[in-house]
C-alpha cells in the first residue's frame, strides 16, 4: 500500500496553477516545500487529506508576493501607468475641456444609474414570493358583439374562487383579494388605514412572513385580523399585540376585532400594500354578494400544483364561466365571436399588466421604456460632448501621435492610450456621479414615485452596474479619438497634408444631433406645460374654489347630517352645503338609457340636494330647481344641456322620460336643464348628466361646503369641532375640491416634471459642449480673426463669423426635430378629449430661445479672443 502511495502525486491542476502564478525564483522553495510536505503528509494523514492540504496551501500562496514579477513582461503595465499619467496630465493641463468632459460623462452616468434603479425596481415587483412561479391571477378577456377584442379585467364574482377550487384539481390554494380603506379607532381619534381583504389561504400563497401568529389559522376565525408591524407599533407601541383588540369601523359602526397575527411590513415592491388583513368572509360588507354571481368585486389568485401545464389549464378555465353565469351565457348567444375568456396570468406579470383593469396600482411598462430612452439619450449627449471636444483638441494630440509613431509606437498602443484616457475621465465621472446620485435621490423619488434610500446604492446589482456603465461610457466616449487619432500618418501630418481639429463634418453632425434633441425636449416641455396650464385654467362649467369636500361618514344617521347642516347654516362664512353621491373626481356611476328610437344614451348620475347648484355655482338654464317640499320631485330629474341634446328628438322640458327605470325612478319628469359641467377630468369628453334628489340621504358619500373665502384653519377646526359635537363616533375627513380636481392630472404633472428635468440636463449638456467647441474653434482661428481685425472687421462681424456655423446647424436641427416633436405631441394631446392646439408661435419661441442661447455662448466663448490686441496673436510664432 505504501508502495502505491509513494508514487501518487498531488492534484495536477493545483500544481500547475502554482507553477503558473509563482515567480520562477520562488518556485524552488515554495513548490519544493509543498511537495515535500505532501510527500510526508500522505503517509501521516492519508492521501485524501494531504491532497486537500496541498490545494489549500497552493491557494494560501496565491498572493502578490509570490506572483511572477511583471518586469519580464512589463510593457503593458508600464504603458498602462504611462497612459494614466498622460491622461492625468492632460486633465490637469486642459482644465476647462476636461471639466466639460467629466461633467458630461457624470450627467450621463448619473441618469443611467438613476433610471436603472427605477427600472430594476419596477421589474422586481412581487419577486420576493417564494412560490411566485406557481401563483397566477385569473383575468378575463372581454370581447365586443362584433367579435373584436375589447378589454381585459381582473374583477370576479365572490363565489367564483371557492367554485374554482372545487372544479379544478390543479388548484392547490386560492384566495380572493380586494383592497379597501377602513377607519381604525384607538382612544378617541380614528384614522384611515389600508386594508386587504383576503381568504384564509392567503399566507399559503404569498410570502408575507408573520412575526407572530400562525399563518395557517390567523385568518380563519371570525372577527380576527392580521396587522402589519408598522400598524402594531403605531397603535400599541410594540409588536407584541396578539390577542389585543382593535376597533374597526364598518357599516357605520365600530366593531371589535381580535389580532391573531403580526405580519412584516410589505416590501415597497409588493403589489399588495396594506396595514391590515381581514378575512373576506367575515367582512359583512360583502355578505350580500357572497353567493351572488351578478357583481364583480374581487381579484382571484391561485397557487397551481407544480407540474401543471399552464397552456392546458388555460384551455380548461377558458369557458368555466358558462356553468355559472346564466345571464352572460344568454347574452353571449348574440355575439359573433367569443364573449369572454378566462385566463391565468403569472404573478410576476401582474405589476406590469397596465392593460388589465385592476384596483391594485400597476406600473406602466411605457414609463420604463420612456425613462430608459431618456437615460440613453442623456448618456449619448454626454459621450457626444466628449467626442466633440476630443476632435476639437486633436490638432494638439495629432503632433503627439505623429511623434510617438516616429519613435515606433504601434497603433494598438495608441488606441489603448486614448481609451485609457477616456476611461480615466469616466472613472472621475463615476466618483462624481455617486455624489450627484445621492444628492438627487430625494428629487428623483418624487418624480418616480419611489422610495430609494442612499443605502440602496450599495445594492449588489448597482455596485456591479456602476463600474460597467462607467466602462461602457468610457469606451463609447473614447471610440472616436482612439480609432481616428491613432490612424494619423506621421509623415502626412508633418507635411501638413491632413488638417486635424476644429469643426469637421462629424463634429457638425454630432452638434446637430444634440441641438435636435434639445429642441425636441424643450418643445416637449413647453407643450406639456401648456396642456397642464390648459387643464388648470379651462372653465369647467362650475366653480370649485373654496369648496371643502367632507367624507360623509354619517350614512347610517342621516338625521345627524341634517343637524350638522343646520348648524353650519348659521355661520356667515359658509355660503351653502349640499350632500352629493360622489364628489367630482371621486368616481360615481353611470348607466345607459334606451331611447324610443332604439339608440342608447350613456349618462352619469349624481344624487344631490337643491343647494348643489349654489355650492358649485351651476346655473339652471331653463325649468326649475328641485323643491324638497314637493313630493313629486322625488321622481323628477334635472339634466344637463348635453343630456337634453341627446333626448331632444323625443322629449322636451317637463316631459316624462318613458321607459326609464333606474336609480329608483320610474318615468321621471325632467323639471330643469342645467349648464354643462366637467365632472370628470378633461381627458374625457363632457358627458350627459342626470341629477336627482335622493329619497334616502344614504346616497351621499360626500358633503360639499362652499365657504365665502379661502378656508383657513379656523374654519376647518370649527367644522371639525361641530362635526364631533354632533357625531363623536364618525370620523371627520376633509379635502379641498380644487385639490381633488388637480389630483386628476397627477400623471401629467409627473410627466411634466420628468420631461422638464430631462430637458434641463440635455440643454445643460449641449450648452457645455457648445461652449467647449466654441473655445476650441477660436483657438484654431485666432490668426484669422486677428487678420480680419487688422483689416477693419468690427466686433459684431467677428461674432457673426464665429456664430453663423452654429446657427446653420440649429436650422438643420430644427428641421429634423420639429416634425418628430409634432408627431409625438399630437399623439399625446389626442389622448385628451380637450387639449390645446399646437401653436407655431411656440415653436418659433423655443427656437428663438435656443438662438439666444447660442449667441450668448458664442459671445462668452469668443469675446476674450476678439477683444485681444491682434498683434499678440499674430506674433505668436
Amino acid at each position, binding site marked *: 500500500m505504501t508502495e502505491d502511495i509513494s508514487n501518487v502525486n498531488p492534484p495536477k491542476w493545483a500544481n500547475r496553477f502554482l507553477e503558473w502564478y509563482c515567480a520562477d525564483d520562488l518556485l*524552488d522553495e515554495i*513548490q*519544493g516545500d509543498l*511537495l*515535500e*510536505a505532501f*510527500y510526508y503528509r500522505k503517509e501521516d494523514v492519508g492521501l485524501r487529506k494531504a491532497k486537500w492540504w496541498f490545494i489549500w*496551501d497552493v491557494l494560501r*500562496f496565491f498572493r502578490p508576493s509570490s506572483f511572477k514579477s511583471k518586469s519580464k513582461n512589463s510593457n503593458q503595465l508600464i504603458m498602462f501607468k504611462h497612459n494614466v499619467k498622460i491622461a492625468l496630465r492632460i486633465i490637469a493641463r486642459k482644465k476647462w475641456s476636461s471639466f466639460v468632459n467629466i461633467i458630461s460623462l457624470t450627467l450621463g452616468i448619473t441618469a443611467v444609474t438613476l433610471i436603472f434603479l427605477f427600472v430594476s425596481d419596477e421589474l422586481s415587483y412581487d419577486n420576493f414570493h417564494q412560490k411566485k412561479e406557481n401563483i397566477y391571477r385569473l383575468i378575463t378577456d372581454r370581447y365586443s358583439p362584433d367579435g373584436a377584442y375589447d378589454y381585459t379585467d381582473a374583477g370576479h364574482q365572490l363565489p367564483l374562487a371557492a367554485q374554482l377550487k372545487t372544479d379544478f384539481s390543479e388548484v392547490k390554494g386560492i384566495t380572493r383579494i380586494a383592497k379597501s380603506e377602513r377607519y381604525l379607532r384607538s382612544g378617541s381619534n380614528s384614522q384611515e388605514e389600508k386594508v386587504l381583504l383576503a381568504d384564509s389561504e392567503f399566507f399559503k400563497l404569498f410570502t408575507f412572513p408573520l412575526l407572530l401568529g400562525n399563518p395557517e389559522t390567523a385568518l380563519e376565525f371570525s372577527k380576527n385580523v392580521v396587522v402589519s408591524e408598522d400598524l402594531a407599533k403605531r397603535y400599541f407601541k410594540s409588536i407584541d399585540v396578539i390577542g389585543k383588540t382593535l376597533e374597526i369601523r364598518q357599516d357605520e359602526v365600530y366593531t371589535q376585532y381580535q389580532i391573531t397575527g403580526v405580519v412584516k411590513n410589505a416590501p415597497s415592491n409588493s403589489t399588495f400594500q396594506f396595514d391590515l388583513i381581514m378575512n373576506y368572509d367575515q367582512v359583512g360588507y360583502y355578505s350580500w354578494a357572497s353567493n351572488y354571481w351578478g357583481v364583480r368585486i374581487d381579484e382571484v389568485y391561485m397557487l397551481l400544483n407544480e407540474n401543471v401545464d399552464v397552456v392546458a389549464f388555460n384551455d380548461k378555465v377558458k369557458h368555466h364561466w358558462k356553468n355559472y353565469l346564466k345571464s352572460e351565457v344568454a347574452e353571449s348567444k348574440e355575439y359573433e365571436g367569443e364573449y369572454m375568456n378566462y385566463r391565468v396570468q403569472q404573478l410576476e406579470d401582474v405589476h406590469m399588466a397596465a392593460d388589465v383593469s385592476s384596483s391594485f396600482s400597476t406600473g406602466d411598462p411605457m414609463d420604463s421604456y420612456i425613462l430608459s430612452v431618456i437615460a440613453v439619450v442623456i448618456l449619448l449627449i454626454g459621450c457626444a460632448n466628449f467626442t466633440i471636444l476630443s476632435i476639437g483638441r486633436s490638432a494638439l494630440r495629432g503632433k503627439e501621435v505623429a511623434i510617438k509613431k516616429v519613435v515606433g509606437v504601434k497603433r494598438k498602443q495608441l488606441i489603448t492610450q486614448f481609451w485609457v484616457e477616456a476611461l480615466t475621465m469616466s472613472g472621475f465621472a463615476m466618483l462624481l456621479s455617486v455624489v450627484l446620485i445621492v444628492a438627487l435621490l430625494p428629487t428623483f423619488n418624487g418624480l418616480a414615485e419611489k422610495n430609494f434610500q442612499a443605502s440602496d446604492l450599495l445594492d449588489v446589482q448597482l455596485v456591479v452596474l456602476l463600474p460597467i456603465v462607467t466602462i461602457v461610457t468610457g469606451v463609447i466616449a473614447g471610440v472616436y479619438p482612439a480609432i481616428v487619432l491613432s490612424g494619423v500618418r506621421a509623415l502626412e501630418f508633418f507635411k501638413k497634408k491632413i488638417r486635424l481639429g476644429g469643426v469637421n463634418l462629424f463634429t457638425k453632425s454630432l452638434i446637430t444631433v444634440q441641438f435636435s434633441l434639445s429642441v425636441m425636449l424643450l418643445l416637449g416641455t413647453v407643450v406639456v406645460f401648456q396642456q397642464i396650464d390648459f387643464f388648470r385654467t379651462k372653465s369647467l362649467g362650475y366653480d370649485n374654489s373654496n369648496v371643502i369636500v367632507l367624507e360623509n361618514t354619517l350614512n347610517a344617521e342621516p338625521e345627524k347630517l341634517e343637524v350638522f347642516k343646520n348648524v353650519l347654516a348659521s355661520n356667515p362664512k359658509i355660503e351653502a352645503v349640499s350632500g352629493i353621491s360622489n364628489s367630482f373626481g371621486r368616481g360615481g356611476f353611470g348607466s345607459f338609457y334606451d331611447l324610443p328610437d332604439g339608440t342608447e344614451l350613456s349618462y352619469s348620475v349624481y344624487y344631490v340636494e337643491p343647494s348643489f347648484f349654489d355650492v358649485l355655482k351651476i346655473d339652471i338654464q331653463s325649468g326649475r330647481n328641485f323643491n324638497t317640499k314637493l313630493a313629486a320631485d322625488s321622481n323628477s330629474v334635472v339634466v344637463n344641456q348635453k343630456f337634453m341634446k341627446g333626448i331632444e328628438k323625443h322629449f322636451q322640458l317637463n316631459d316624462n322620460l318613458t321607459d326609464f327605470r333606474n336609480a329608483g325612478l320610474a318615468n321621471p319628469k325632467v323639471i330643469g336643464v342645467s349648464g354643462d359641467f366637467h365632472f370628470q377630468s378633461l381627458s374625457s369628453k363632457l358627458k350627459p348628466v342626470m341629477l336627482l334628489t335622493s329619497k334616502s340621504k344614504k346616497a351621499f358619500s360626500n358633503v360639499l361646503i362652499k365657504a365665502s373665502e379661502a378656508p383657513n384653519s379656523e374654519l376647518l377646526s370649527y367644522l371639525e369641532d361641530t362635526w364631533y359635537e354632533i357625531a363623536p363616533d364618525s370620523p371627520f375627513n376633509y379635502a379641498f375640491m380644487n385639490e381633488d380636481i388637480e389630483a386628476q392630472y397627477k400623471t401629467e404633472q409627473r410627466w411634466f416634471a420628468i420631461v422638464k428635468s430631462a430637458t434641463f440636463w440635455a440643454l445643460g449638456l449641449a450648452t457645455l459642449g457648445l461652449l467647449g467647441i466654441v473655445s476650441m474653434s477660436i483657438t484654431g482661428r485666432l490668426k484669422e480673426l486677428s487678420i480680419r481685425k487688422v483689416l477693419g472687421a468690427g466686433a459684431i462681424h467677428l461674432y457673426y463669423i464665429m456664430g453663423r456655423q452654429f446657427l446653420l446647424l440649429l436650422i438643420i436641427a430644427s428641421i429634423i426635430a420639429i416634425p418628430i416633436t409634432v408627431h409625438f405631441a399630437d399623439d399625446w394631446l389626442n389622448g385628451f378629449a380637450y387639449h390645446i392646439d399646437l401653436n407655431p408661435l411656440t415653436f418659433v419661441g423655443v427656437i428663438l430661445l435656443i438662438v439666444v442661447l447660442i449667441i450668448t455662448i458664442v459671445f462668452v466663448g469668443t469675446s476674450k479672443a476678439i477683444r485681444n490686441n491682434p498683434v499678440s496673436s499674430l506674433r505668436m510664432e
Partner: protein
Amino acid sequence: MSQNLGNLEETVLLIVAVMAEEAYGYTVSEAYYKHMGGRISISAIHTVLKRLEKKGLIISKMGGATAERGGRRKRIFEVTKIGMSTLEHIQSNRMKLWDLMPKLNFSA
C-alpha cells in the same frame, strides 16, 4: 537599536536557531507543530522567514534538491549574529521581569 519582533516572528526565529537539521519552509513548519502544538500554513512560515531575513536576523542560501521535493532546491535559513543577540536581548529582558515576580507561596 531594538528590533520590533512579533510573537510569531520571535517563535520562528527561535525555532531556526535551535534546529539541528537544515531549516527551510517545510522543516520549520513541522518543528513549529512539534514544539508549539498548533499548525500554521507553510505560506505563513514563508512570509515570516522572508520578513526575518529582511530585518537581517537570518540569512538564507539555496541548498540541495531532493526527490521528495520533486527535484526542487531548498532555501536554507541560518540565524545571524544580530538575530542571536536579539534573541538573547529578549530573553534577558524577560528574565529580569521574571526576577521581579513576587516569590510567594500560597500553596500552604
